[in-house]
C-alpha cells in the first residue's frame, strides 16, 4: 500500500513518528546511569527507577490518584447509569436538553471548570480539596458514563425487558437480570475510559491541590519544573507499563476500537 500512495505514506510515517518517538526517548533515558536528562543516555542502570519508587511524594500521589480515579469512576457510573436509563427508557420532559446537560462538561474547558470549583467550592464553601476533586472528576466522567452506556442501551431491545415484566418480574428484577447484563460491555468501556482519564487528568486537578492530597500528574509537573533529573523519566516508564497493561486488558475484553468508537459517535 505504501509504494502506490507515496504522499499519503510519507505523511502517515511522519504522524506516527510524532506520536510515538518522544515516548521511546522517555523510556531510553529512564535507564540512564547519569544524573541529568540528556540524550544519548550515559551508561545503563536502574538507579532512577530505584529513586522513583522510593520518592515518597510520588508514591503518595500515585496512591491518591488511584483512589480518586476509582472513586470518581464508581460514582459517575452510579449516577450516570440510572440517568441513562431515565433518558432512554423513562418518560422525561425535555429529553434532549437533559442529555445535553449530562454531556456539557465535555465542552467547557477543564481548566475553567477547575477554576470555578477552586474559587466557589474550595475557597467559597471551604470544602476540603479531596471532596472538590471527587466532585470535579465525577462531573467530568458523567458524559462518558451516559454516552457509552447509552450507546449499548440504544442497541438493547426494550421488549426483552417488557417480556420479563410480563412474565412477572419486578422492575428492579427485570433491570438486574435482563438490562444490566446487556449493558455490561458498555459499562466496562465507560469504567475503563473514566478511570484512565481521571488518573491522567491535569487541567481540572491543577488548582485543586493541597499538601494533604495531591494527584500524581500534577506532582510530576511540579517536579519537572524544579529539577531536571531522569527520575520523572523512570516514573513515566512505570506509568507507560501500567497503561500498556490496561490497553491489553481492554483489547482482550471489549476491543480497543469499540471503546473509542463509542466516544466519537
Amino acid at each position, binding site marked *: 500500500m505504501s509504494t502506490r500512495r507515496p504522499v499519503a505514506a510519507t505523511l502517515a510515517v511522519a504522524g506516527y513518528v510524532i506520536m510515538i518517538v518522544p515516548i521511546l526517548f522517555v523510556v531510553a533515558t529512564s535507564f540512564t546511569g547519569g544524573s541529568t536528562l540528556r540524550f544519548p543516555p550515559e551508561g545503563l542502570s536502574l538507579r532512577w527507577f530505584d529513586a522513583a519508587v522510593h520518592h515518597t511524594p510520588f508514591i503518595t500521589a500515585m496512591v491518591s490518584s488511584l483512589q480518586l480515579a476509582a472513586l470518581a469512576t464508581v460514582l459517575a457510573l452510579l449516577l450516570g447509569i440510572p440517568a441513562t436509563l431515565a433518558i432512554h427508557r423513562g418518560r422525561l420532559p425535555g429529553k434532549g436538553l437533559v442529555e445535553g446537560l449530562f454531556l456539557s462538561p465535555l465542552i467547557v474547558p477543564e481548566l475553567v471548570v477547575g477554576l470555578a470549583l477552586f474559587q466557589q467550592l474550595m475557597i467559597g464553601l471551604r470544602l476540603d480539596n479531596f471532596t472538590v476533586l471527587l466532585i470535579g472528576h*465525577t462531573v467530568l466522567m458523567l458524559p462518558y458514563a451516559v454516552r457509552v452506556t447509552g450507546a449499548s442501551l440504544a442497541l438493547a431491545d426494550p421488549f426483552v425487558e417488557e417480556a420479563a415484566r410480563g412474565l412477572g418480574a419486578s422492575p428492579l428484577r427485570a433491570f438486574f437480570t435482563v438490562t444490566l447484563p446487556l449493558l455490561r460491555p458498555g459499562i466496562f468501556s465507560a469504567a475503563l475510559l473514566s478511570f484512565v482519564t481521571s488518573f491522567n487528568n491535569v487541567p481540572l486537578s491543577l488548582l485543586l491541590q493541597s499538601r494533604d492530597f495531591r494527584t500524581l500528574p500534577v506532582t510530576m509537573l511540579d517536579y519537572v519544573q524544579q529539577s531536571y533529573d531522569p527520575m520523572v523519566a523512570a516514573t513515566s516508564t512505570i506509568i507507560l507499563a501500567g497503561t500498556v497493561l490496561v490497553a491489553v486488558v481492554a483489547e482482550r475484553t471489549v476491543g480497543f476500537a469499540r471503546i473509542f468508537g463509542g466516544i466519537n459517535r
Partner: protein
Amino acid sequence: MISRRTGLLVLPGLALLLAGFLVPSAAMLLAPPGVSPADILARLGQMLTDPYDLAIIWRTVRLGLIVTLICLVLGFPIAYLLARSTSRWSGVLLALAIFPLLLSNVVRTFGWLVVLGSNGAIGQLLLALGLVDQAPQLLYTELAIVLGLTQLFLPLAIISCYSAVAQVDPGLDDAARGLGASRTRTFWGIVAPLSAPGIVVAATLVFAGSATAYTTPYLLGGSSQRMLSTQLFSYSSVSIDWAAASATALIMTVLVFVVSGLSSLAARRGRTS
C-alpha cells in the same frame, strides 16, 4: 420499565451537575468573590485592547489553527490507509494510533524535553554532525508547543477521520477508478467530500483541545510563550486576580463554544445540501 418513576432516576446526576458544575461555573464567570460583572467586563475590554494580552489570545488561536491543520494533514492519510488496508498489520497500527490516548499527557509531553532540550537528542545530533557550534534553542518555542500539541491530538483526529472513511464504500473508489479517474481525482472527488463530516468533527476536537491544553504550553512553552491556559492559571493561583481570571476563562469558553457552534452549523449544512 417505561414508567414515570424511571424518569426520576435522572435527578441525582442532575443535582451533581448543578451543584458541582453549572452553578459554580456561572458564579465564577459572572460574579467571583468581591468582583462585580462590570469589573469583569472592564478587564475583558482591557484584554481585548492591550497588545500583551492580545498577543496571548492570538498565539492561542494561531497555534490552535496550525495544530488543527497539521493533525488533519497527518491524521487523514493514516485513517485512510488504515481503513482501506487489508493487511493484518493494520490492526496493530490502528491500536498504536489509539494507544497514546490512554497514556498520560504529562508522560507524552515529557518526551519532548528529552528530544528538544539543550542536552536532548536533536541538539546533540546536530552538534555531533558538526552542523552547529552550539545546541539550538528548540525548547520554549512555539515550534515545541506545536509539536507537543500535535502529538497529543493526532490520535483524536485519526479516530474521527477513521470512522468517517470506514463508512465510505470502497466500491465507489473502484468505480471512479474504473471510469478512468486518477487516484488523486478519486480522492478529492469521492473520498474527501464523503468523509467531510468526520473531518469537521476532528477539526473541532483538535482545535478545542489544543486551544485549552495546559500541560504542553506549561512544559514546552515556558514563561516566554504564554497561552490563555497558562495565563489563566497564573491569574488564579499566583497573582489571584479574580476579575482577570474570569475574563480569561470567558475568552477561552467563548472561543471553544464559537468553534463548536460553527462546526455543528457546518455539519447541518452538509446534511441538507
